[in-house]
């Protein structure tokens, strides 16, 4: 499913809209994991608007591809993408984080249409994705399972337990992404708990690894195309990203992991997104 220049242009425009929506929701919410969400926006956009086989009108369609946001604190980005994809009325996001709302910071699959797994406690998504991929095999289903992880999240032992299992069962219907923005909450991943040589670790666990620029649609498409046809086992796409991508004053700033925005800052942030590439 090679990508065309025109598609790339459309996806970039979509991502801009999604980033601006994330800024709006952060404003309405009185604070959200905005840096986290901006970091993963391009990965989410290409998945939800090009690759995932799904139907927003039938969220329970048995044969749909599954997506698991293992870094569940990206909920604000996930919610905006689902709204833009037509799962629910974007207006509902005005209630994000508010009392009695269906939308907490970490999305609840029993309350939010389109969410395949409730996450938020790190290290749970990949194990569930492994289970879904195994389940597809048992049920002779052709759907694929996509799972997006945080890099800091890979400190968790459960990620490596799942990594081992995915290779053990040769899950070629499982495609992982790591949002490799090099930041966690307390600082740089390499300073808090070293991950490098990161790709080598995944390779040693038996995964096929592709390292790409996570904001480059051509590279993302090429890696996903490869992963979809790779038959030997699971593929991990390490997507080099920038936390806060698109909003210049947030980029690479650990302080914007979570934050609130005044009306002024909302405007400044949107202008920055308008100017940014992609």
């Amino acid at each position: 499913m090679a990508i065309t220049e025109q598609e790339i242009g459309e996806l970039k425009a979509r991502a801009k809209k999604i980033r601006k929506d994330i800024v709006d929701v952060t404003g309405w919410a009185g604070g959200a994991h905005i840096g986290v969400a901006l970091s993963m926006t391009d990965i989410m956009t290409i998945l939800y608007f090009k690759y995932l086989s799904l139907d927003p009108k039938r969220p329970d369609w048995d044969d749909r591809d599954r997506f698991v946001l293992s870094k569940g604190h990206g909920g604000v980005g996930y919610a905006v993408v689902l709204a833009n994809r037509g799962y629910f009325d974007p207006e509902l996001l005005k209630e994000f984080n508010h009392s009695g709302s269906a939308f907490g910071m970490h999305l609840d699959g029993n309350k939010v249409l389109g969410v395949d797994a409730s996450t938020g406690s790190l290290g749970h998504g990949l194990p569930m994705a492994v289970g879904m991929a195994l389940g597809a095999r048992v049920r002779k289903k052709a759907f694929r399972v996509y799972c997006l992880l945080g890099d800091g999240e890979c400190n968790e032992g459960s990620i490596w337990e799942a990594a081992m299992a995915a290779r053990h069962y040769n899950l070629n219907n499982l495609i992982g992404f790591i949002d490799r923005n090099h930041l966690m909450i307390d600082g740089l991943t390499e300073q808090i708990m070293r991950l490098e040589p990161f790709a080598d670790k995944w390779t040693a666990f038996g995964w096929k690894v592709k390292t790409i620029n996570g904001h480059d649609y051509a590279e993302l498409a090429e890696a996903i195309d490869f992963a979809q046809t790779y038959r030997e086992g699971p593929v991990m796409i390490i997507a080099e990203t920038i936390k806060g991508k698109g909003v210049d004053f947030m980029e690479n700033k650990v302080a914007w992991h979570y934050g609130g925005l005044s009306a002024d800052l909302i405007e400044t942030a949107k202008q920055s997104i308008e100017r940014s590439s992609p």
Partner: protein
Amino acid sequence: MSGGVTWTVYDVDKLTQKEVYGVVLCDLAKIHPEIVGLSADLAQSTKIGALGEKYPDRFFNVGIAEQNLFGVAAGMAKVGLIPFVSTFSAFASMRACEFLRTDICYQNLNCKIIATHGGTSFGPAGTTHHSTEDLSIVRAFANLTVIVPADAIETAKSVRACMEVKGPVYIRIGRGFEPRCYESEDYDFKIGKAVELSVGTDVTVIACGTPVQHAVQAAKILQQEDGLSVRVLNMHTIKPIDEAAILRAVQDTRRIVTFEDHNVIGGLGTAVADVIAASGKGCAFKKVGLPDEYAIVGYPEDIQNHYKIDTEGIVETVREIMGRDFERDEDWEDEV
């Protein structure tokens, strides 16, 4: 008082529960070189990072790896250190559950767990970050002392007092935006001894954590509007629980209601119920907390209102229990 620490929590208006904890811990670390701190990418969120700033060589951030966090702390305790371990209480009690139980409690190690963001204090984050089962879980661990301070002042007292316990202590605090309950540090805090915050003879309200200050407010309202004499017990130590205070409350008031920012299964209410049931005495009793469901998303004060663990809810429940009938057994010779 442990080891001659004389520091007091001035400026408590500006210091949150978490900040107070960081400050007191630094103070203790000054006189106890064996104190070390550990966290799992939540050094700033939990404020244990304050220790790391002051004593970089005595602070360890193990990354986002809570099981390892508790295992490493156990190892350090084994070789003579006193580890203070901090993460969100949902992860301390559930993610690291067996490491806490088997490595730390079973081996009876001198480890102090400061579990932050307890109850629904991180309300908008949703169920993954609500901690409404932790008291129930950790209360079942032998050797473990479990404390739920009512506010920042009591947090300071708990952190100091836990040094006197030679064994594991679990201190559960909030997110840092909790209202204050005490005016000053000038009161008697003893692990395992409830604090009577309001004298009363008609009904007893037993609470821990944030609901304590609501109970104090509710008692005033009930006195003014209903002429009720409400005893308020701040049961800051859930384990070992102050059985004598509960039995006195049964004897004196015959009506008890418990309030906690926690599931009603297995927490403070259950601990109190156990004592009442074992006494064999009739007592109108109700435990209020989160029902057997995952809490709604929302600001903590709205969640507390929704589940009736705020001032309004306490007033309402106390009125309800005043109208309830029960059988009396007036023979107290054998019990108290």
